[in-house]
């Protein structure tokens, strides 16, 4: 690993990226990757869960197949489309929402923005291109994936147990809460982590939306962030040999992280009761 020899262990903590000064590190992009993925999961997880529950338990049987193929269609939409959608359509609204969050919840450290919230004309440029905006687009991409996993596990719930709950006088929600969700817990966790693995590696939607910045920044609403994959996509072209090696190392680190997340997800899905028949 020539990268580590050249830049030392501070490669993982150094946030600045000054090729002229030969200072290089992935601290900032690691934080950025995690914060974008975290925003994406906060948005995608409840929506995926609700959609999966709706499709498997609440939707009329006639339109269920249509809904399933619609979710598949969502998964097939190219990420660049979600990037454009996020950039042109969602970002203005997201910026307005960010302003509202700052005015009302600005005391939370990760909602803080270095701009005056009560300015007569608010400074839009401080609110766009943030990890929050990128997270919305990434959420759209991971949502169908985790939704598909969850729905598949929910649909394997033994009908006998569901009918037993209903026969005992349970309401539909009572049945879902006591039978479907406990049965599908492994699928819920596994699907979420699979989505997380994809969110970490997402490139082009993030690259379109963010304004690149190389500061360790936990304030997700403020302009400027970067992720490992966006860094690679944006910088590989003009990289010198040492920088290319550094980018490869960054990519390898990303690979290891997603590998761990996906392996954990696979283990959880396999170990849970989900999918196994119940003869009790």
């Amino acid at each position: 690993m020539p990268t580590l020899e050249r830049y030392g262990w501070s490669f993982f903590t150094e946030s600045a990226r000054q090729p002229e000064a030969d200072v290089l590190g992935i601290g900032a992009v690691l934080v950025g990757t995690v914060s974008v993925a975290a925003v994406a999961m906060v948005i995608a997880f409840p929506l995926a869960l609700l959609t999966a529950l709706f499709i498997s338990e609440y939707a009329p049987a006639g339109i269920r197949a249509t809904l399933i193929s619609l979710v598949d269609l969502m998964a097939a939409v190219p990420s660049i489309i979600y990037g454009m959608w996020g950039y042109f359509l969602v970002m203005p609204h997201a910026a307005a929402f960010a302003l509202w969050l700052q005015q009302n919840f600005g005391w939370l450290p990760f909602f803080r923005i270095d701009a005056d919230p009560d300015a007569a004309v608010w400074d839009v440029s401080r609110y766009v291109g943030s990890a929050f905006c990128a997270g919305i687009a990434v959420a759209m991409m991971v949502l169908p994936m985790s939704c598909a996993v969850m729905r598949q596990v929910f649909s394997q719930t033994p009908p006998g147990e569901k009918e037993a709950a209903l026969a005992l006088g349970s309401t539909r929600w009572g049945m879902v809460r006591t039978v479907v969700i406990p049965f599908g817990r492994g699928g819920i966790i596994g699907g979420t982590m699979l989505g997380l693995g994809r969110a970490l590696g997402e490139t082009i939607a993030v690259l379109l939306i963010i304004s690149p910045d190389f500061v360790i920044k936990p304030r997700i609403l403020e302009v400027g962030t970067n992720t490992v994959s966006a860094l690679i996509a944006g910088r590989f072209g003009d990289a010198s040999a040492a920088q290319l090696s550094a980018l490869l190392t960054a990519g390898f680190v990303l690979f290891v992280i997603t590998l761990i997340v996906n392996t954990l997800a696979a283990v959880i899905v396999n170990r849970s009761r989900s999918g196994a028949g119940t003869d009790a």
Partner: protein
Amino acid sequence: MTQRLLPLGGWAWLIVSRFALGILFTIVTTTMTGRRVDVVDRVAGAVITSGALVVGAALVSTIGFVVFRGWEPLLHLNFFLDDMSGVGPRDEFDRGGIAHAIVGSAIELGIAIAVTLPLGIGTAVFMTEVGGKFAGVVRTIVEAMTALPSIVAGLFVYTVLIVAVGFPRSGFAAAMALAVMMLPIIARAADVVLRVVPGGLREASPALGASRWRTVWHVVLPTARPGPRPPPSSSASRAVSARRHRSCSPAASRPSWSPTRPTAS
């Protein structure tokens, strides 16, 4: 009045507050007639349904937005038949097109499929039919490779093929990046399909005196044929949309039918 209740102006927030008030209304009316369980049931139903509606609305707005912003060039046939050579940024829609990009995508995808399909199905056959200790190792590696972020695959090919070997940035290199991405997906999907081939069929063939190769070729693969088709097509659709291989192929504005020359996609 509504605008005062809302955190922000605009129709989006009108819908949000309409939803919150609707739930409140449901709670009040259900409390009058039913018990707590009924209230919880109704609210949960409303929340789940509206969650699905939000997702549906997002999907519709995505597709609608793309169509709305991009319908104009679609009316001109040359958009599909022409390329961008000699077309300036200020030209009207009746000049130029994306033929070069379509051709580029098709070439890259064709090469990638031609490379990965035999390899992927071969890997799956190895995992299910040959078996043994090594097959377990291969399966673990394949599982791990599906986690490979596509950007890393692109960067890998860029470093190995283009920087180290000195290959030109071309559709072929891009296809190799796609192949790296697609191979584990195809292998895993084919593995899943091959595993459900009935064991009885599999044992009947050697029992009649067929060799292992003839068993695989004449019994296992034909039985599984309806299965493997969706996996290649789905991984292909994932590969087409993957833009990371742009790291390998520079954008050209003329159609180039040769896969070793610069292409667009």
